[in-house]
């Protein structure tokens, strides 16, 4: 079998798995299937892929035409498809303690075997780690940056225990500029700031709409459950800053 055929079959298998994953909600299924197909076929389309943490600012990636991929969502997908146990065993054989976060362990193992429910995530060209969610992501992304030998940007957001302070604001603001420089270097092109501002507007709009969706639950009876909220969360995380996310929540 030629290499081209092999690649074709690999993608076909991946896409079939993706469709099987998202058969629940038609609209969500379509949007996320296209997203994962795009992400998995970037090698052909020439677009770059960034792995990013769930709380990381995704807008600059969208503005740079980089496809954001979320290893945390991948960890959840692995868990939901009951494939976590065997991948965690693999990570343990790599030396990772069984006490460590299972999302991280299953993703770290998955990268080495291209396994899991969608045949592994598309290979990253860069990694963006924002530690506002936890300290674990820092270690997880360091592991992956060494494994894939790609640049890592750490977006360091100091934890606010009792309040937000001016020096934190300055530090985080400066890092936004560093983030853009990092992307320009990793992508080999300049940021289009007009486009970034447009992406920012779409992001804010989607966030406002998502908040309005969540606010509907103050009604009795509530029109949706917490599980529905987790389900519909996917786009505000994954495709924040795009027109699709705004349309979906509207």
């Amino acid at each position: 079998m030629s290499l081209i055929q092999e690649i074709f079959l690999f993608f076909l298998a991946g896409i079939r798995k993706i469709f099987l994953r998202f058969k629940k909600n038609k609209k969500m299924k379509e949007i996320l299937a296209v997203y994962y197909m795009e992400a998995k076929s970037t090698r052909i389309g020439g677009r770059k892929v960034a792995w990013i943490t769930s709380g990381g600012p995704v807008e600059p990636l969208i503005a740079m035409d980089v496809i954001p991929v979320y290893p945390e969502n991948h960890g959840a997908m692995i868990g939901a498809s009951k494939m976590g146990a065997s991948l965690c065993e693999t990570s343990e054989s790599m030396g990772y303690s069984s006490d460590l976060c299972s999302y991280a362990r299953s993703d770290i193992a998955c990268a080495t075997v291209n396994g899991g429910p969608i045949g592994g995530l598309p290979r990253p060209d860069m990694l963006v780690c924002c530690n506002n969610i936890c300290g674990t992501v820092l270690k997880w992304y360091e592991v992956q940056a060494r494994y894939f030998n790609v640049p890592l940007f750490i977006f360091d957001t100091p934890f606010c225990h009792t309040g937000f302070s001016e020096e934190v604001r300055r530090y985080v603001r400066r890092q936004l500029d560093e983030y853009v420089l990092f992307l320009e270097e990793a992508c080999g092109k300049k940021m289009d700031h007009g486009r970034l501002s447009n992406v920012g507007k779409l992001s804010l709009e989607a966030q406002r709409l998502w908040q309005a969706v969540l606010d509907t639950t103050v009604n009795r009876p509530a029109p949706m459950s917490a599980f529905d909220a987790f389900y519909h969360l996917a786009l505000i995380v994954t495709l924040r800053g795009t027109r699709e996310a705004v349309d979906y929540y509207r």
Partner: protein
Amino acid sequence: MTGLEEFYEILKDPVDYGRKLKGESRRKIVGYFCSYTPEEIIYAAGAHPFRLFGTGEAIHLADAHFQAYCCSLVRGALEGALAGRLEFLDGAIFPHTCDSIQRLSDVWRMNVKGLFHLDVVLPVKLDTESAKTYMSDVLRKFTCDVESRLNITIGKEVMQDAVRVFNRIRGYLGRLYEVKSTYPGIISGSDLHSIIKASMIMDRDRLLEILPGIVTELEREKGPGDETVGKRLVMAGGICNHPDIYRIIEEAGGVVVGDDFCTGSRYFEGTTEIKDDPVAAIAERYMARPPCPAKHTGLFTRADHLVDIVWEKKAQGVVFFFLKFCDPHAFDYPYLKEALDRKGIPSIMLEVEDQLPSEGQLQTRFETFIEML
């Protein structure tokens, strides 16, 4: 070695020591948890920095606040506070390191009353200009917070003097490690450990009265070389709160000649320059010091540093010594081990909680490992 009774006396009951020190010196006692706590600033404010370790006692009260998968340092410290054993503390400092310490800060603030509480949310990455600026900013804010809590103004000269005090302490501790590495039989591992650990608890002025004599005496004495003592080993991990481990290693035919511990070389490495802006100088030391795994200075810096220690100390193997449930260390372990493997440096990994596993079991593991070297 003789002359160490004072250190052992303090370590026998650190809490009792803290209470007495408070009574005798009338100074405020400020508890802290990790080597990223700017002790100089506490000292400059006329207070006493008192490092807290886990409790040796059973943990009950802290279980109501922490999951069982939090490390014994965090659970033990909270247990001590909730049980009222740390009532002599006037304040507690929580530098941002790992998720567990971060949570400890919040749980402590909400449940432990009667003392002031300060967070020092240091940067996590230490390899950029903006992080360096932020590090100075945070330490400056911390200084103001300490001043307001202790109702004092710290002058520049006072701060510089405090920096000098801690530079001297660190310098002497570094020389102790040097002499131990040159003449491994000159002082036992447990004795050395006790000096280091007590130096984070005891009155620093008193420490500087007795430490120079001990160091110069050892340097003059010169002891037996490695051939009579054992295979040279380096230990690596977070905190080591177990003096017995050194004796067990020595009985198994090894000797610890260096470490990468938060309660070891990471605590005393690096000198703070005496500058016009002493707080910025303290920040610079933190940026340059060998990092803890909860901080980022590069993808390979910790492995490079560990290999450097092994080579510099002419060690034959490494003992990884981790506190169970310490995520940052557990995440780094595979890559550190791989880096050692690539250089042909054998290693062994041991994970412990508050108590060591049975001595016989440890003895066998160490004997097997050391025989292999």
